[in-house]
């Protein structure tokens, strides 16, 4: 394997070097020719020098990667020709996790996007057999993490297991301190991961992530994705899977500043209360101001400023790419007309009116003496007119207005770039020429150039999107570099259009919009995750940097020139004219729009016209020689940006609430909804056809036909073409969700319950018939009196119980364990390869395990349909029991039960160790509450035969809950109300839900991830009929 991958990069780099060296001189020549003639205004200019450095770097990366594709597939072909070993299977499975998990990784992911504000997921991961072997530093980091993140933190510790799923306990002092310091609520704190090598069920991994949301993080061994198997395996943990694919790459220039800002950002992400009122962008600006002040005080030089080069080449592209790549296409194109009108006409209107009005006021003499002419004002108007995508995104993401409103404002801010670029260039060149020399030809040129710039930019974007889609079609054997292509090629589209002085923002936006469908279909699941996270990380990092640097840049006395009238009037004009423009355009639009934009929407739209860093960067670009009042413009722009971002950003949320603007509500996908939606699409296009009109639906229908017939065939992998259907996807997703909740249900009861014999389950159940204690007796004295004995009873009965059950149960358990865990704890020494993530060498075994588990699960489900609700009860009981044990154990030491559970736990730990050394392996189950399932075998038995524990009145509230749950959810009379999707998910064991599991496997026959599935394939057929007779 390594031999195969080795020639790739070397040859690739060599090739790239040759190509780049050969290409450069020629390109330079072109640049010199056109560079010399740039007098006056030009429709298109060629600015190679402008983009040279980033372009070369990007090109190199691209060429090298492309070479790698070619070489690796060639090498593979030769290699596989030489050895006709079934090693192809490795390449096909797509197991390439994009991260090599090192022994400990602590991920703080506040940069994942503004949406994730406040989520803070430390992931701590040990691959070692035993926690004792983990490095001390790791343990201490582990201990710190949860403290700083009270509610969302998870700590995952992988512990070795032996035999019947007992924990090899963290004996070391490190681990103890780590666990002791977990301040988080017990149930949420710790999860112990035991991740056997499993076959890649990538879909499932992703769905885990989705279903569990921010409470989930994923842990997985570097060799394979996780699947249901480890959830089944006794010690497994299901809540923990690996957060894979967070690879950190970035434009080299901004990486360091990322690091810098990463320090600032988390603190805001953490402070929920502050950010719920104040937008993050505003806070960052303020922070920037403070930092700038510090720097200034220390140095008296404004050493850090937001330079246009850094902004346009490194900070802006990730944000815009992110916007384009995750653009809801249907919504965007559905409102394209509206967006375009606002973007083009609105921006021109804003620029013209603001510039002219300022000029008018200037003529009246209110501003005093300024060395400016009409053109300068128009130039200023043009750069201040454009709504800024960065600011809009930052603020609107936190406001959550409805999708249509958002897409209109946001789309406008993206698409108006062409107008801004053209207006800016035109007026700048006019100012350079001098007002008297501007001829009519120049004006015509300006108008022409608008079309060239906008359409050209779009075209460049589309072409690169095509290339990108095409390239990703052939990356099957080099999965590891797939994400790179997405970034490099879209970045190249940006640079190319920048080089041709076309609209770069349009180019990269459309590159993202056009490629998303094909790229997402082509690249592997892991790469898609990587792309998603990296993109979000880059974008949110860049955003952070931009706002902070805006603040820092403002602290520079040299750029400040104050003119009260000018500043205030600019503020007034941009707000007023924006409002007027919006109202006028909406009035026109509403005559054609199906969904009317109401007054409230208009208010939000006018108020949401935020200005931002684009304006600032443009104004800094101005040449002091040509524009005499540059400093005035700069300071006014800063004021405007601060005003809109801070003031309007602050007030827009209350405004939206006050006006009761329709918010966006997040809904779970529903199969019926998608189906009906599809039906509507067809019906509407038919109706449009019949009534003889060309409308949206008609065009969309034609486009999707074209897409299916030609584009998808060219741009998508054959395997991807098959599985690419929205309805199918939703179906898939829902199925996965069901599967997950099913597994989750299992793990809540302790995963061994799955493979237990029904008889044991029943025995567990018997306990429920024991009478409940009344709540009246819940006094401390009673507690103290009763519980001492309760502990003893607990222990004794536990022992007895175990002895009695052990013989019968252990046989079964051991047998299953041996079956299921072939060699789970064996650490594989992977060959290190930079170019290839080593595929799992135990594929066969994994598949077998997987099959077995699936089969087993289906069988057990069928047989134990009635036993399920009982199991649920058992789980409840068990939970209570566990809590009880903890309390009980604290009593003998004279501690009150009010103490923090953590403390209790530690004491109890000692306690147990002293009292019953044989029980030692079990106490791990009490650790932080998350490790429960590790020792669930013994725990469950405990639950069954300790009625004295149940008598404890402290747990009466808990008991009420369980009393409710005694009625199976689908039998409860109160359940006639429509349950929400989520509610259904949480009751995963209802027969209706389970049946959907079966078709899922049928449907996914075509999907790669289910390469084998021979046994499970048989199963669904048996379950299907039950669903069909409905």
């Amino acid at each position, binding site marked *: 394997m390594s031999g195969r991958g080795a020639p790739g990069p070397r040859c690739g780099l060599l090739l790239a070097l040759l190509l780049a060296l050969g290409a450069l001189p020629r390109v330079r020549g072109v640049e010199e020719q056109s560079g010399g003639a740039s007098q006056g205004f030009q429709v298109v200019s060629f600015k190679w020098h402008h983009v040279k450095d980033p372009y070369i770097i990007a090109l190199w990366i691209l060429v090298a990667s492309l070479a790698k594709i070619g070489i690796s597939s060639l090498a593979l072909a030769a290699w596989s020709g030489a050895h006709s070993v079934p090693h192809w299977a490795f390449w096909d499975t797509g197991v390439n996790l994009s991260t090599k998990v090192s022994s400990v990784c602590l991920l703080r992911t506040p940069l994942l996007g503004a949406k994730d504000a406040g989520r803070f997921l430390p992931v701590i991961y040990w691959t070692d057999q035993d926690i004792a072997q983990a490095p001390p530093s790791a343990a201490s980091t582990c201990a710190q993490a949860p403290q700083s993140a009270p509610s969302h933190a998870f700590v995952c510790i992988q512990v070795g297991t032996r035999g019947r799923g007992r924990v090899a306990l963290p004996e070391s002092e490190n681990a103890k301190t780590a666990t002791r310091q977990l301040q988080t609520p017990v149930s949420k704190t710790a999860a112990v991961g035991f991740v056997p090598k499993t076959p890649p069920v990538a879909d499932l991994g992703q769905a885990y992530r989705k279903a569990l949301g921010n409470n989930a993080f994923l842990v997985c061994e570097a060799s394979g994705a996780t699947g249901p198997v480890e959830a089944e395996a006794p010690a497994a943990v299901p809540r923990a899977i690996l957060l894979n694919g967070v690879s950190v790459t970035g434009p080299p220039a901004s990486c360091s500043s990322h690091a810098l800002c990463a320090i600032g950002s988390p603190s805001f992400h953490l402070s929920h209360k502050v950010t719920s009122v104040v937008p993050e962008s505003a806070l960052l600006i303020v922070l920037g101001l403070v930092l700038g002040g510090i720097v200034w005080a220390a140095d008296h030089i404004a050493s850090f400023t937001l330079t246009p080069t850094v902004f346009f080449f490194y900070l802006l592209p990730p944000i815009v790419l992110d916007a384009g790549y995750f653009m809801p296409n249907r919504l965007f194109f559905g409102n394209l007309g509206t967006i375009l009108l606002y973007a083009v006409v609105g921006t021109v209107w804003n620029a013209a009116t603001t510039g002219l009005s300022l000029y008018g006021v200037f003529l009246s003499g209110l501003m005093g003496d300024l060395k400016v002419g009409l053109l300068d004002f128009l130039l200023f108007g043009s750069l201040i007119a454009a709504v800024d995508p960065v600011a809009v995104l930052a603020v609107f993401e936190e406001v959550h207005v409805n999708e249509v409103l958002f897409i209109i404002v946001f789309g406008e801010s993206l698409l108006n770039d062409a107008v801004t670029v053209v207006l800016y260039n035109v007026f700048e060149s006019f100012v350079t020429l001098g007002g008297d020399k501007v001829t009519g030809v120049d004006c015509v040129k300006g108008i022409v150039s608008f079309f060239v710039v906008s359409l050209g930019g779009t075209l460049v974007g589309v072409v690169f999107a095509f290339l990108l889609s095409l390239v990703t079609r052939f990356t099957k054997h080099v999965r590891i570099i797939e994400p790179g292509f997405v970034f490099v090629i879209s970045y190249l589209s940006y640079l190319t259009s920048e080089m041709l002085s076309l609209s770069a923002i349009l180019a990269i936006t459309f590159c993202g919009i056009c490629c998303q469908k094909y790229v997402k279909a082509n690249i592997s699941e892991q790469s898609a995750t990587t792309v998603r996270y990296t993109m979000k990380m880059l974008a949110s990092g860049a955003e952070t940097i931009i706002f902070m640097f805006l603040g820092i840049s403002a602290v520079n006395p040299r750029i400040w020139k104050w003119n009260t009238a000018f500043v205030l009037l600019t503020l007034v004009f941009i707000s007023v004219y924006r409002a007027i423009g919006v109202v006028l355009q909406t009035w026109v639009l509403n005559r*054609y729009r199906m969904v009317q934009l109401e007054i409230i929407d208009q208010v939000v739209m006018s108020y949401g016209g935020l200005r931002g860093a684009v304006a600032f960067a443009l104004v800094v670009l101005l040449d002091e020689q040509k524009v005499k009042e540059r400093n005035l413009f700069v300071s006014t722009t800063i004021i405007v940006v601060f005003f809109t971002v801070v003031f309007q950003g602050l007030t827009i949320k209350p405004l939206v609430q006050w006006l009761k603007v329709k918010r966006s509500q997040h809904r779970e996908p529903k199969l*019926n909804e998608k189906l009906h939606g599809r*039906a509507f699409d067809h*019906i509407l296009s038919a*109706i449009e056809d019949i009534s003889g009109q060309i409308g949206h639906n008609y065009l969309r229908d034609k486009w999707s036909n074209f897409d299916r017939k030609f584009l998808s065939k060219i741009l998508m992998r054959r395997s991807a073409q098959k599985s690419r*259907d929205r309805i199918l996807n939703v179906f898939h997703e829902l199925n996965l969700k069901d599967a997950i909740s099913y597994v989750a249900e299992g793990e809540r009861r302790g995963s061994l319950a799955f493979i237990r014999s029904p008889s044991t389950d029943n025995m567990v159940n018997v306990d429920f018939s024991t009478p409940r204690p009344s709540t009246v007796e819940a006094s401390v004295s009673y507690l103290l009196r009763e519980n001492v004995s309760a502990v003893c009873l607990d222990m004794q009965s536990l022992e007895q119980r175990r002895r009695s059950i052990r013989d019968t149960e252990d046989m079964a358990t051991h047998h299953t364990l041996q079956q299921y865990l072939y060699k789970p704890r064996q650490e594989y020494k992977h060959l290190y390869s930079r170019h290839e993530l080593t595929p799992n060498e135990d594929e066969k075994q994994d598949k077998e395990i997987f099959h077995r588990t699936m089969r087993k699960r289906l069988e057990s489900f069928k047989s134990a349909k009635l036993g399920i609700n009982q199991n649920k009860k058992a789980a409840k009981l068990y939970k209570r029991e566990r809590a009880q044990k903890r309390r009980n154990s604290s009593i003998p030491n004279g501690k009150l039960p009010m103490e923090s559970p953590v403390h209790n736990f530690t004491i109890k730990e000692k306690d147990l160790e002293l009292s019953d050394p044989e029980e030692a392996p079990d106490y791990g189950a009490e650790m932080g509450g998350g490790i429960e399932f590790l020792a669930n075998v013994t725990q469950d038995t405990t639950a069954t035969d300790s009625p004295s524990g149940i008598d404890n009145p402290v747990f009466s509230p808990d008991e009420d809950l369980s009393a409710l749950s005694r009625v199976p959810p*689908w039998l409860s009379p109160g359940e006639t109300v429509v349950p929400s999707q989520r509610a259904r998910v949480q009751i995963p064991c209802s027969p209706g839900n389970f049946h959907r599991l079966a078709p899922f496997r049928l449907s996914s026959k075509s999907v790669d991830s289910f390469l084998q599935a021979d046994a499970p394939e048989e199963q669904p057929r048996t379950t299907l009929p039950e669903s069909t007779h*409905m």
Partner: protein
Amino acid sequence: MGAAHSASEEVRELVGKTGFSSDQIEQLHRRFKQLSGDQPTIRNLRKGSSGLADEINFEDFLTIMSYFRPIDTTMDEEQVQLCRKEKLRFLFHMYDSDSDGRITLEEYRNVVEELLSGNPHIEKESARSIADGAMMEAASVCVGQMEPDQVYEGITFDDFLKIWQGIDIETKMHVRFLNMETIALCH
């Protein structure tokens, strides 16, 4: 009917009935004539099974079209609800091919198969299982959690309304009727 554009009363009547403007009616009438080949009715729509009419006249044509008219801004809440219900009823009948007031699994499967027939890679089998899944979902939405032996016979119209609860139909089931014929320009 053939002289609808000249007989203004008839047009006015249709305006009242369907809510189209007279311009739109005239335009649709032109289109109707184009489709029918200047006959008063369009014939041979499909060799219809039960429930499909052999021929429709212009008024039927207009009525069908009027289901897709956008909701007027002047309508009050109640009217909007009524309108919504009407639209959904229309859709319901499209699913309910034997018009017994129930979308059975068989009918649903047919619809789904047809919907997915555009993609050649999706086998019938998976289309069926999707339909099954959707039915299951519908059942769980409408009935709540079912007992294991309970049988869900099909989606009734009330259930259908329930499924559609909260889904914004207004943007979905509308066609903008212009006053001019755009397709004709292309031919």
